[in-house]
């Protein structure tokens, strides 16, 4: 039983979700290979080799892997697949893009957003926006799993260095190409792994008011998130959306400001350790999941909170 984990990276740095995925892999078995596919990404492979639990790094470099296009990456992983009992990738937008393609090429089903490993063939995953948890057993010869990063602690770096083996890239017809890419740059912590997250909703009324959240976030070293309504209204960019169909977060502290608490939003944050809700409507459903609720006008409370910190 050998497990293949697909590393996520931007050719320079390893994405932290890979570390959480490695912890999930360690709960399944101990022979773990990690594929680093990219362009000029030896540095990433060298870093991966030092993560504890990794027994082998597979490095495959090609310009066609520079931007994680699903068509290229999936055919490489599918070529390697038959040597493995399990294939794991983080349930990030990158993993969600190529992993089902891998599963279909291997003619096996995939389990998405696994949050608990019960046995090498039995897993728990949320369904219906997290309103239910399904325990699923699979007898697939290759078990393809996307791992919800927030459900597993990050694997640590050790003092060993696993061997790095070079792999020839897979020649795949170029069916698609990247035309443009925009990365929203921010000095704030990453939403997916921040210890504190402050999210704003429609209650903020405009993008200027998000400044109040940013100021507070800077004071707390927090990441900023948003509800879909805030994103739809154009207050912030879409990659800040927390929820069933946005990012899943589970920080130590989640502060929801001017967010009503729709099922779809709660699905993305209800595993946070401590939840604070600030809302002027005392009946707002967000208070049902909040550890501490503060009823009142956010435009008065936020400046006050900033001063109090």
């Amino acid at each position, binding site marked *: 039983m050998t497990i293949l984990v697909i590393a996520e990276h931007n050719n320079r740095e390893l994405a932290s979700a890979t570390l959480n995925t490695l912890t999930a892999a360690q709960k399944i078995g101990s022979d773990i290979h990690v594929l680093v596919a990219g362009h000029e990404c030896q540095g990433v492979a060298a870093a991966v080799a030092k993560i504890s639990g990794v027994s082998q790094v597979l490095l495959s470099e090609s310009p066609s892997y520079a931007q994680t296009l699903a068509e290229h990456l999936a055919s490489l992983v599918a070529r390697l697949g038959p040597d493995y009992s399990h294939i794991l990738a983080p349930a990030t937008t990158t993993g969600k893009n*190529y992993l089902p393609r891998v599963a279909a090429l291997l003619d096996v089903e*995939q389990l998405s957003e696994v949050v608990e490993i019960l046995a090498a063939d039995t897993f728990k995953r949320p369904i*219906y926006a997290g309103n239910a948890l399904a*325990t699923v*057993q699979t007898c697939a010869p290759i078990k393809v799993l996307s791992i919800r990063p927030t459900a597993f602690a990050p694997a640590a770096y050790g003092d060993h260095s696993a061997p790095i083996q070079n792999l020839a890239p897979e020649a795949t017809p170029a*069916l698609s*190409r990247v035309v*443009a890419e925009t990365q929203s740059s921010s000095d704030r912590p990453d939403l997916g792994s921040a210890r*504190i997250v402050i999210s704003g909703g429609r209650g903020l009324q405009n993008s200027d008011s998000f400044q109040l959240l940013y100021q507070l976030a800077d004071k707390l070293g927090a990441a900023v998130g948003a509800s879909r309504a805030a994103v739809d209204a154009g207050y912030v960019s879409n990659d800040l959306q927390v929820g069933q169909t946005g990012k899943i977060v589970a920080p130590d502290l989640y502060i929801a400001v001017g967010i009503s608490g729709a099922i779809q939003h709660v699905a993305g944050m209800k595993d946070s350790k401590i939840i604070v809700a600030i809302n002027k409507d005392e009946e707002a459903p967000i208070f049902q999941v909040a550890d501490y609720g503060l009823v009142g006008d956010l435009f008065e409370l936020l400046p006050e909170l900033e001063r109090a910190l």
Partner: protein
Amino acid sequence: MKIMVAVKRVVDYNIKVRVRADQSDVDLSNAKMALNPFCEIALEEAIRLKEKGQASEVIAVSVGPSQAQEQLRTALAMGADRAILLETEAALSSLNVAKLLKALVDREQPQLIITGKQAIDTDNNQTGQMLAALAGYAQGTFASSLELQGEEVLVMREVDGGSQQVALQLPAIVTADLRLNEPRYASLPNIMKAKKKPLEVLQPEALGVALTSNLRVLRVEAPTERPPGIRVDSVAALVDKLKHEARVI
């Protein structure tokens, strides 16, 4: 150019589902059912392309029980030209659905296939990508905009940390994200007209696809409830709690 849109019948998104006491599944008896929101968006996009004169026909297809005809009628009322139901009572995996859709793609030869990014019941987020693999087509997932340009379709994708624009060679598969468009409501005259539009019902067996599954759901349980919280009456009280009780700041 033909566009095929895959639409799924799911529980209405406003409903908070409950788990059955015997933990066999969620309880959907008498629950309001609807078109999966992402499928509505996929369909809307196809209809707009037809209205712009860029598509000749929009076909809505669904895999599901006989009652999924209701959702297909809604699709027809929104503006699809015809509909196909692959009728089955079985709860199929995304791979099985993708295989059935692939058989229809072979038969209909659409140039563009649009699916939702995710069905809000299983939350799988798999079918479009799997269909792309089986058909050997390019894929543009989590689309927030889509534009046909010659032999390609330009897709803006919503990704972690920003967005990515890809150009896909046609035929291609696109999966719709929430911001692709705002779906229309079907008007009463269009609902009446939809009753006369063709809706073909096929048995999956007729497509020669073997529907086996490696998955077995052992149990479905409710998530652990969070313990009830408290109300604080001032910012000072909140900060005190966060510092001294929760110890998170």
